[in-house]
């Protein structure tokens, strides 16, 4: 077990290193730089700026310097907002994104798993059809369309929720629904197909042949088996929800980190691009690792030291 964890942690560092190298390289391959303007900056000013941020160093040295900072958890200064560091963006924005993400995660789990169970147990009947039609809509309709619709109906027409901001708890309702829509639909479908498959297994027939109630067959014999694929996708889902969404944070004016993800790319804010990518990647890798650890709690067939 301990050997496995250490091995996995080492692998995670290698993965992270590869991600930073790739991002760094691609970022510099793209034409233009952080100080490219429509109006030409005098050559001397540009040279001075590049010297200040060490952009005149060879690429390998820039990368090495960046990694050095990374070891000290220093993601560097923003090239676009003078006086701000990438760490500032994260510490200011992440709590908002994470809080919204946590609420959404709870909502997603409470909604999607029961939906999937009901749909599977009523497969082919109207409850299944309705739920799966709704799930298909949830997967296919983009979040900004859902957000606009929700805003129009609940904020503008009915006035039940504010149009933006999260200073009151009501402010969370619409962002949660919008952010969770896709995950709910996706997980509900997964739960349904997984449970349907499990219900056709031989050991479910065995359980029924014991004369126990159908509720016990489902709860004790089917659900845990059916949850295994759901747990698998939970890692990436958690990472996605907690690291914020550009669209949703923009629409509902939530000061999270989702904004920086997109803006930094269009502005060639090298350090912010790197910082956001490293942060998201590290988060995602950790979540996948946590999920893998969860497996051994759920499935005794999975052994670590093999």
């Amino acid at each position, binding site marked *: 077990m301990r050997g496995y964890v250490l091995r996995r942690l080492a692998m995670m560092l290698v993965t992270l290193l590869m991600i930073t190298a790739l991002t760094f390289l691609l970022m510099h391959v793209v034409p233009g730089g952080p100080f490219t303007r429509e109006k030409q900056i005098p050559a001397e000013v540009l040279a001075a700026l590049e010297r200040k941020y060490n952009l005149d160093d060879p690429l390998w040295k820039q990368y090495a310097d960046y990694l050095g900072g990374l070891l000290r958890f220093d993601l560097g200064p923003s090239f676009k907002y003078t006086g701000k560091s990438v760490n500032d963006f994260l510490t200011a924005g992440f709590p908002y994104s994470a809080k919204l993400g946590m609420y959404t995660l709870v909502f997603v789990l409470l909604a999607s798993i029961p939906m999937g169970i009901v749909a599977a147990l009523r497969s082919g009947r109207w409850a299944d059809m309705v739920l799966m039609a709704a799930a298909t809509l949830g997967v296919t309709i983009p979040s900004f369309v859902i957000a606009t619709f929700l805003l129009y109906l609940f904020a503008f027409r009915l006035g039940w929720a504010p149009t933006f901001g999260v200073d009151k708890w009501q402010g969370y309702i619409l962002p949660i629904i919008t952010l969770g829509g896709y995950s709910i639909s996706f997980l509900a479908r997964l739960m349904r197909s997984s449970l349907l498959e499990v219900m*056709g*297994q*031989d*050991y479910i*027939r*065995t*359980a*029924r*042949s*014991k*004369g*126990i*109630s159908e509720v016990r067959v489902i709860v*004790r*014999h089917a659900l*845990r*088996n059916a949850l295994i694929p759901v747990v698998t996708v939970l890692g990436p889902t958690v990472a996605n929800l907690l690291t914020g969404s550009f669209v949703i944070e923009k629409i509902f004016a939530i000061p999270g980190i989702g904004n920086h993800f997109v803006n930094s790319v269009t502005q060639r804010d090298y350090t912010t691009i790197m910082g956001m990518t490293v942060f998201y990647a590290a988060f995602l890798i950790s979540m996948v690792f946590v999920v893998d650890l969860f497996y051994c709690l*759920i*499935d*005794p*067939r999975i052994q670590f030291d093999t």
Partner: protein
Amino acid sequence: MTMQYKNYDVSHNPGGDEPLLTIRNLRTSFFTGAGEIAAVRGVSLTVRRGECLGVVGESGSGKSVTFLSALRLLAPAGRVMGGEIRFQGRDLLNMRLKEMREVRGARIAMIFQDPLSSLNPLIPIGKQVDEMLWAHEKNLTARQRKDKTLELLTKAHIPEAERRYGSYPHEFSGGMRQRVMIAMALACKPDLLVADEPTTALDVSIQNQILRLIKSLQSEMGMGVAFITHDLGVIAQMCTRVSVLYGGLVMEDAAADDLFDRPLHPYTEGLLTSMPSLMQDRSIRLSPIPGSPPDMSAPPSGCPFAPRCAHARNICVSQMPPTYTYADGRQSRCWLHSHDAPAFDNPYRDIRGTAVPDEEAL
């Protein structure tokens, strides 16, 4: 070489005649995208107290479906279309689900072909046996249940039951898993054990151990056993009576000794001659039955075996033969037993016309 047909009386069957499970004219179909598949088309058979009935047939002959119908454990696509199933006089097909659950496990227990897929992979085997007691013996405490589970595991020849109680199915060998299934099935001392090809997934030496275990526990507990298999060798070892199924119908029903002495249906004969034997002269080639079983989504109107039968005549293809019952209780569903069947190329010419045909409409 036709052997002389011996006359046995019904009382030859050990274990008496008290019927435990009686299935009458059972019809079960599966409804799939491709239409109706008539898996069982009028099966009648009886399992008596204390006896071991062998139910033999190729895959798809309807043998498993017959007993899954009795326990109402069919897959959602399956439906019983007609017939009657009585267990100790009670109507299984029409009893309430709650009563059915009291029968399942407690009065009729089942073991299945593949013990790995039939055990829940996420639950320790001890707990899975324990659940059977939990479901039916409500007066036992958790402690008593555990003691009894350990006793059952030991009885099923699982060594170090105490240590193995918390092990998971994947940590056992195939034979050991089947022993767990047996311990589980016998936990509540059922009156009937349905063994659905319990040794098919095991290798031969393990198979023999499992068969002997089932047999010794059967005689110890005095239960009836329905032994579903496609292996006539297993039938010879285990069973007192045999029902031969083909195309969703019972083709022949006889005491096991009689059946091996002289089969009264061309299909049974085909099964016997296609079975390898250690005693047999190696220069004699095995003769498999030519052709393949009928397509049950469009079952033939005549005898389902007719297309593969060496003795088939016109009537066999066009009309379903009735079941002929001889004075000693032996049954065969074959036109060759009719009193107007020709003597030429008729393996039953010496006895034809002495049996009574049933008057079922199919």
